[in-house]
């Protein structure tokens, strides 16, 4: 191996999260969270709902330089309210200098975000809580061996939907925007440019803000850990994971995939994952594959109609 050449200093991302956490090799959630944290910078107070990211901090180890509070699955947004209130009281009493104020970030998986944590989240939005809600969506209960969650997509096999999910993915983004929050966006760590713009935007906004991150999971979706980024990019390119942003009451798609017929078929994405293997072997299930494709095509037809 040759030695590293000299190059004029570029701007490297400083790593806010230390290495050495025990998430799976190739964890798509950790990769997305890392990028978000790097852009938010160091003054972040994470309120973590139980989930895969429980693994981030196992006593006495933590990857954080800032603060982290652990809550039950249902109460992370309520925990966020408590932390925000405490910070505000300390600021008002001049016990915390304004430059040491922190962003409150609720960190939760899709199981908590779209299921048992939804009530506390809805309440926090009612109260216009100034916080960021970062949901790493790996489309199932990953930490306990991948059971069906409300965010599991149609047809995907989990340990509690062994012949494929008969239901459909719950649209957490739509549930959020129905509350008319200050900001909401979908992101994916495999699209770092789009992610960076959105996190930079939300930094300057106050109020409830959602970041919904598609988080490919090699362990649960059954693919090689090396393919985590490949799958994230493909999910966006084939139209299955729309990148969008809701701001000042307006919805904008930030990266529109190519037109129907010219973009990759969803099949390309599905085939790379063991959780869809039953759609291809022993017999091909055309009905489900084309249903998934048609739903994606219909989604993007509507987007073009609205201009």
């Amino acid at each position, binding site marked *: 191996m040759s030695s590293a050449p000299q190059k004029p200093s570029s701007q490297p991302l400083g790593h806010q999260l230390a290495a*050495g956490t025990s998430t799976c*090799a*190739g964890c798509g959630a950790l990769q997305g969270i890392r990028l978000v944290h790097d852009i938010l910078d160091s003054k972040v107070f994470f309120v973590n709902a139980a989930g895969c990211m429980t693994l981030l*901090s196992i006593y006495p180890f933590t990857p954080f330089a800032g603060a982290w509070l652990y809550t039950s699955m249902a109460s992370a947004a309520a925990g966020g309210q408590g932390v925000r209130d405490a910070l505000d009281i300390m600021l008002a009493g001049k016990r915390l200098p304004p430059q040491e104020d922190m962003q409150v970030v609720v960190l939760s998986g899709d199981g908590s975000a779209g299921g048992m944590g939804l009530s506390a989240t809805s309440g926090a939005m009612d109260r216009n809580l100034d916080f960021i809600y970062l949901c790493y969506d790996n489309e199932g209960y990953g930490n306990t061996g991948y059971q069906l969650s409300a965010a599991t997509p149609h047809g995907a096999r989990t340990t509690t939907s062994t012949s494929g999910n008969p239901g459909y993915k719950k649209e957490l983004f739509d549930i959020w925007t129905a509350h008319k929050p200050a900001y909401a966006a979908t992101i994916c760590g495999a699209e770092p440019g789009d992610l960076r713009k959105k996190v930079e935007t939300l930094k300057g906004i106050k109020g409830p803000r959602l970041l919904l991150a598609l988080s490919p999971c090699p362990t649960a979706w059954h693919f090689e850990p*090396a393919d985590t980024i490949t799958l994230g990019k493909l999910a966006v390119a084939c139209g299955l994971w729309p990148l969008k942003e809701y701001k000042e009451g307006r919805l904008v798609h930030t990266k529109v995939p190519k037109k129907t017929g010219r973009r990759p078929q969803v099949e390309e994405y599905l085939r790379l994952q063991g959780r869809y293997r039953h759609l291809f072997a022993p017999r091909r299930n055309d009905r489900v594959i084309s249903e998934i494709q048609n739903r994606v095509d219909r989604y993007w037809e509507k987007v073009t109609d609205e201009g």
Partner: protein
Amino acid sequence: MYRIRFHGRGGQGMKTASRILGTALFLEGFEVQDAPRYGAERRGAPMFAYVRAHHKPINERGIISRPALVVVSDDSLLAMAAAGVTNGLTAATLLAVCTTRPSSFYDHHDDLKGQLILFRPPASVNGHSQLSSCCAGAAAALLGIISPANLAAAVARELDALPPERIRVNQQAAATVFRRLTENGAFVREGADQVRVKRPHWLTLALDSAALAAPAIHAAATTLRMDTGLWRSQRPEIDFDTCTCCGLCNIYCPDGAISLGDNGCPAIDYQHCKGCLICLNQCPTGAISARPEAAAHETDEVEA
């Protein structure tokens, strides 16, 4: 009662091995328990699964602390205290290790109690290792109470989601190691029916103080002390003749195990790199290659 523990890394199939062995024992007419240790499922991280078999209903629960047989799918786990491979081993325990190393390598492992039995991993077929079937076959042979026919049937039953050809290859892998280890003549001795526990007269469950029940960590970035690099089976290496220092690997590495130096060029932190190889897959100039960790390790030793 027979008590067996399988040790491996997440993704190597030791949960499946325990299921195959459990099913084979069930087909032999035993009452059976098989379970992985409940925990966060992480690829590459140490895990274990266990099997109990008895000719009477099994009332014992929980992990096995005194195994009669331990099967290890990954020889690197022996050196990892956290993997707990040697927990509860006695002189009567059989310790079967899947390894490509010569037996002389294990001569200086003074702390290995029990009788050591080595077997080789099966050759991979079309990129698939038959490690779970192989380890189940090894356990079946060493128990000496499972017929080859029931072993084959158990493999087929537990792997029924796979194409027939792969089931056949797995059955062969199980049968091969089964034959070889049966010739060995070492068999597991059945453990006591019950683990005797002295019943306490009175138990006081004190309430933990908040400091214990919800502990706080005051130091920053202590995970750096975790050597997650030990999970790695493939080592990514950067060829700086081809690397353009674009920094994409730094952005895509989930673990933050790639940093950019003052010159803007990437460096891999092998103490923490888990070997997912996202960097290799995403490098636009193909400057990153992978070497099996065992081979890379040997080069390290020579260079040291």
